[in-house]
């Protein structure tokens, strides 16, 4: 897992490669100033950090079956003695691991 410092180095390289970047204000297209570039690097590094640290939360929310589907799994697990629901939860967690 990368540190924020390592991700900042990565972001700096990506912004350098993307230069020149422009901003539009009052219908004028102007190249970024040095402080704009610094902010873009900070923003990109923070975005990478958030994805790395917290992206699994969103991914898990979207991968879990609906409450109705999960209740159905639990019912049939009770009837048939299977572990469909627990397997489903375990699979989602393993596909979208929490950072160490």
């Amino acid at each position, binding site marked *: 897992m990368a540190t924020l410092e390592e991700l900042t180095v990565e972001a700096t390289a990506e912004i350098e490669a993307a230069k020149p970047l*422009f901003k539009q204000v009052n219908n004028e297209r102007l190249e970024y100033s040095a402080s704009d570039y610094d902010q873009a690097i900070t923003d990109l590094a923070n975005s990478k950090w958030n994805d790395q640290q917290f992206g699994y939360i969103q991914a898990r929310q979207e*991968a879990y079956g609906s409450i109705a589907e999960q209740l159905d799994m639990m019912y049939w697990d009770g009837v048939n003695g299977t572990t469909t629901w627990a397997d489903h939860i375990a699979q989602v967690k393993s596909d979208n691991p929490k950072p160490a």
Partner: protein
Amino acid sequence: MAGSLIKVDEEIVTSAVASVSLLGIDSTYDVYQLVISNYQSASNQSIAMRVTESGTPNSTANYDEASKYLKSSSAFSNFSNTNQTSGFLTTTVGSTAGYNGNTTAYLFNFNNASEYSFYTVEASHSETSGGVLGLQGGGVFTSTSSCDGVYIFGNNSYNFTGNFTLYGLKK
């Protein structure tokens, strides 16, 4: 009522840029409306915003937000965050041609120096997986400052095009 939506600023971006500022918020109107249409980015990214003070974006960690993502290709999900350096106006918009981002946000108390600046967000766009996504939510800039506009950028700093308009709601 006819003539109730007054255009304050408009930026039509045809040559891609990495940020857009819409300025002109003052005490003339209590509520402003931000409309983004036909947003298209060179790479997958979310549209984010910051308030501006004297035209300069405020990037302090004072943005709180909460949203519901309404997805056609997977389960709905919730998103919330506090003390961020910006607020989201969409989740990730796909970069494939036709995956345009569209958002409407209402801005409250932006010019009022004794109140926090609140905003609602309502977005519709296509996401990276190709599914249609709706987003409903809102946020707040938790600083009692007088804001004069909004600064719009991609959270991954990539270039984008689109139409960006700021309206005042006539009192």
